[in-house]
């Protein structure tokens, strides 16, 4: 990938600086303490060159300011996304033309407003919206789909509608902004066999991958299914061992270093890998204390230790009763302190912060050291 006329490896973090005691509704864009400034400095020291934002804000001037300040003060670029209405109540009606038009209008307004900001790297459409095509999460339908008795055919019909819609948006973005690529945010490789047919105008595949300490055969599989430059848009490990009932910074750092090693091994021109990766953005910069119980404002003030979802690839705590081993509030590479500093929660870098910093300083030496015996 080329940015600013130079080869660019995305050394990114997913960014959503919600302070303890607040939830996803918190308008951090207009926070007078400007948390991105303190974070930007810590990120710069670490070597972060990109943040990933999941969604812009209704006041696009505020969004522009954040992107500009991060870029001008710290040299940090922004990958900016849109949820494509995934969290709209009661569900994302991708089969409904009016719903599609509304979502598309919002996306294009964002592109028009921000396309000339030097800090913008590219656009990401959706996140894990593809899982809704399977009918397990945020399920949606249409009259035509409802008439189809075969569940597998129903999934294919949903996938066709969804991916065609994303491609339609990508085409429109390219017309307005020919200078920035458009990425498809996709959970795992699920549904990409449909994207191959219905998303010819997508430039980058931005995958959300939680496979534990490696990405397995991901890079090779993507070449076979949907051959695009790969941005690992979300990956990581939580820093809480719910089975042992205590924080485990070592395991988080170990997983993250292992994941970054694989990203680097698959960068362009690296003969040891597939050469189709352009970098990644680790989930996430800072802990978010609201995530385990989004509807309980009292719970946002506490750092919950109960697991929220299940992933056996994070083997160290999968034995916990019920199997919910993933602690959504503990994915930060910096922790939040209850102590305030510069108007927001003080950041406490975890071991992973330092491990990745050291890796980025000389990734090729690290790769050689890990890959070869003395």
């Amino acid at each position: 990938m080329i940015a600013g006329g130079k080869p660019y490896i995305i050394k990114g973090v997913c960014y959503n600086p919600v302070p303890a005691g607040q939830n996803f509704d918190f308008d951090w864009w207009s926070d007078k303490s400007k948390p991105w400034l303190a974070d930007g400095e810590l990120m710069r020291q670490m070597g972060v060159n990109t943040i990933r934002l999941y969604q812009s804000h209704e006041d696009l001037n505020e969004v522009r300011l954040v992107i500009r300040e991060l870029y001008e003060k710290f040299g940090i670029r922004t990958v900016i996304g849109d949820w494509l209405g995934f969290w709209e109540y009661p569900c994302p009606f991708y089969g409904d033309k009016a719903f599609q038009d509304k979502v598309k209008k919002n996306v294009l307004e964002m592109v028009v407003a921000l396309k000339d900001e030097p800090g913008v790297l590219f656009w990401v459409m959706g996140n894990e919206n593809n899982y809704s095509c399977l009918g397990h999460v945020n399920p949606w339908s249409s009259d035509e789909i409802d008439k189809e008795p075969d569940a597998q055919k129903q999934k294919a019909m949903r996938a066709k509608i969804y991916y065609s819609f994303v491609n339609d948006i990508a085409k429109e973005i390219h017309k307005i902004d020919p200078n920035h690529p458009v990425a498809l945010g996709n959970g795992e490789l699920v549904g990409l066999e449909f994207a191959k047919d219905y998303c010819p105008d997508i430039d980058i595949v931005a995958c959300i991958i939680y496979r534990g300490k490696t990405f397995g055969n991901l890079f090779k599989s993507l070449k076979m299914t949907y051959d695009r430059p790969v941005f690992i848009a979300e990956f990581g490990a939580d820093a809480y061992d719910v089975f042992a009932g205590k924080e485990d910074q070592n395991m988080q750092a170990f997983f993250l270093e292992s994941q970054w090693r694989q990203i680097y091994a698959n960068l362009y021109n690296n003969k040891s890998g597939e050469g189709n990766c352009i970098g990644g953005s680790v989930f996430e910069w800072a802990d978010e204390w609201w995530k385990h119980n989004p509807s309980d404002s009292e719970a946002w003030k506490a750092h919950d230790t109960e697991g929220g979802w299940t992933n056996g690839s994070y083997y160290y705590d999968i034995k916990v009763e019920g199997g919910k081993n993933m602690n959504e509030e503990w994915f930060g590479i910096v922790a939040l302190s209850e102590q305030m500093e510069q108007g927001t929660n003080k950041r406490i870098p975890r071991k992973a912060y330092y491990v990745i910093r050291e890796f980025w300083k000389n990734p090729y030496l690290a790769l050689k050291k890990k890959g070869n015996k003395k």
Partner: protein
Amino acid sequence: MKSTRLALVLFIGTLNFTLCLSAQAEDSSVALSKKIMDSQCDASIYPVLEEAASPYFKDHKYNEYSEYINSLLKQKKDACPVLNYNAALARFNQLKYLEESQGWDEYFAQGNDYRDQIVSNLAKAIEGTPAGDTLNIRSRLLLWQFHRDQQDVFNEEALNDLIAGVTEYAKSAQDTALIKEVADKIAAYGEKGRSKEIYRIYVEKLTGADVKPEDLKQAALNFYKEGNLDLSESVFDAYIDKLLNSPEKERSVPEFLEIAALFSYKDTGNKDMPYAEKIFALIESVGGKEALGEEQIYLRAFNLEKSKDWPGAKDAYAELIERYPESKYAQRATFKLGVIYTYILRDKDGGSNYFVKLAEKDNISPEGISSLYQLGLLNQWQGESAKAKAYYSKLIEKAQGKFSETQSLTNSRLKEIEEGKPLDSKLQVFLDNSLKEENSQFNMSRASLSLNPYSANMGSEVAVNSSAISGASGCMQVELQYLWSGDLGGSSPQSAQANFNTSYKDPGTKVINLLVLVPSGTLDRALDFVDIE
């Protein structure tokens, strides 16, 4: 003697020391240094070294201790393995301490130097000691722990070196405690397969030609009581080999039965159901089918049932009722066969035969009553309302006011029939998914139940837990619905509940059914038994 003393010193050296560093102790360090320098790096140095290390380790003054040891090493020209080992141990503990205290600045600024020192000092300690020396093994162990903690590419190589070292050590060592200690340490790191290699060496040492079988058995029982089942099983295997190689191996069957019972499923205590089944199979091969009596066949069947080895459980229960038709377990076994055939193996006719056998008995038993209910239910599900009503009516008549929970279910079913209403929806979907051919993909592989306890008294609490593996959903937890049916006792779990607690008023085998739904339809089903005494 040398090995024993060294083991003692080094064991203490790995602990957090409890003495306080005081000015007086600092003064005495000069005297200690002199003692160390005057020593020949033999056993006499160990207690002195221990005394010297204690105050530093207690206060996490690893840098100062390292400087101290390094100054001694310089004077000894590095030719003192135990000093090298202690230098490495200090850095190893220091890295651990920095991780625990999150001293990341020092950890990342100096960590690589410390790691290099650990590797270099341990290499010298290993090179400077013969293969059969205790310090040689401890150095290899520490080196492997270091690489294992680092999760680096040398981990496997270091482990192989350690195992090779222990193998060599075992050839001449009289003291087996170190071998077990190494195996325990490897097991504690989760390397079960590799720890078994060391346990095997340990067992071989224990089972030398002169060891008595009864001592072996006692050792195995002790490890069982400690909860070290891997080691217990290894020693029991050696004990079994000894018995099998004895001239009267048939006489060993009672011993094997005892071992099988020890590891069989029980609600509390140590158990290893596959190992128990392995011993049951061995008993059968040594003594034939007759070697297992009524109690043992039931135990085997129950063990297989709790392992969810349904075909195995089915065969064992069938053998029980064939060989011991009058067994006190016969009715329970017959009822379970009915349920296993019907709902798990999807053989409704095969299962109904067992229910009919019980239903036709003159005596009134919990299983007979439950069988009448099952026959009524299966007929009701098939739309045979008259037949269903006949079974339900017979149940009411035979129950004579007892078995209130089953009667209550029966009254609900009868009411449905009399009012021309459909079968309860939760039961209906469970039966549809369990019995209809087109739903054979719901084979209980993505949903399961576990109960605690599996054998309970009337009125006591039973915890019912479910687990389900839903399809791909990324970081989003799929919203699951749990449709509970069957014998739910005093509880009425809602569809959002993955778990619930209940209790039962009446004795007998209770059947708990679960159907798990995802937003797009059925995920899978599950079924389990609880025996109420």
